[in-house]
């Protein structure tokens, strides 16, 4: 075997090694990325199903004057972001003044958020719904 053959084989060896390493690296990167995404999705799904909120108003005695008062209790097992709670009254997105009751600083399990809705609701059937950032929601139908 001459020097030219050896050089050719060496070049093929190096080229094959470089191509194989690069390909393996790309696959490893892609799988690593997919794994991270799957882990994030699993965490967020887990958080979502362990979260729960309930509108705890007495449906027969919802306070409507001077403002309409709603109470939302965290009955799940995760601390939620209460400030970004979305509120719908009769299907329309509304702005409310939110405050945490009982000296709480976070919307932890058992904590209650008070929602003040400014316009006075007319007599009749109504529906209030709240939705948290992670998609957890609750709805209450009541009559004034």
């Amino acid at each position, binding site marked *: 075997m001459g020097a030219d053959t050896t050089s050719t084989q060496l070049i093929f*060896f190096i*080229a094959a090694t470089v191509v*194989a390493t690069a390909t393996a690296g790309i696959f*490893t990167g892609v799988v690593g990325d997919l794994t991270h995404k799957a882990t994030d999705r699993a965490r967020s799904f887990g*958080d979502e*199903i362990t979260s729960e909120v309930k509108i705890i108003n*007495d449906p*027969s005695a919802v306070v409507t004057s001077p403002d309409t008062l709603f109470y939302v*209790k965290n009955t799940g097992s995760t601390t939620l972001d209460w400030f970004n709670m979305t509120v719908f009254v009769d299907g329309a997105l509304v702005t409310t003044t939110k405050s945490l009751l009982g000296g709480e600083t976070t919307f932890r399990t058992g904590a209650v958020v008070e929602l003040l809705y400014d316009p006075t609701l007319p007599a009749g059937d109504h529906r209030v719904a709240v939705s948290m950032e992670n998609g957890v929601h609750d709805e209450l139908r009541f009559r004034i």
Partner: protein
Amino acid sequence: MGFDVTAANIIFFIAALAIGSVALGAYWANAEHVEEARRIEMERAQELAHTNLTVMDASYNAGFDRFTVEIRNSGSTVLDISELVYLIDGVLVEATLVEDLDVIGAGATDVWLPLETIEIDFRPVTSSPAAFQLVAANGARANWRL
């Protein structure tokens, strides 16, 4: 088969092993996390389904501005009376308004067992309430209306 092919195969084999172990590890960790979350969700749903609260009696004493309610745990869930929330006439009651809260016949305790009745005195309540609602930690409710 030359050295180049063998080397490439070895690299692919090592990479496949690494990828497989990372992916499998992540799969089991995620499955465990989701399974734990589902277990918590099921437990909560089961607890709520087995909670039943009944207002047995409610009375107002105008002389003492006191509103007294008796509620029975008629379900099979053990509850914590320190986690109860009350609404009188639709307004959430501050803890300071609760003058007395006892599990009847149980002495000083926070544990509210099935078939036990609690008695709550609210004071001062300046007029006779027309509606009362109790909410347990799991969201179960008991209502009373005049």
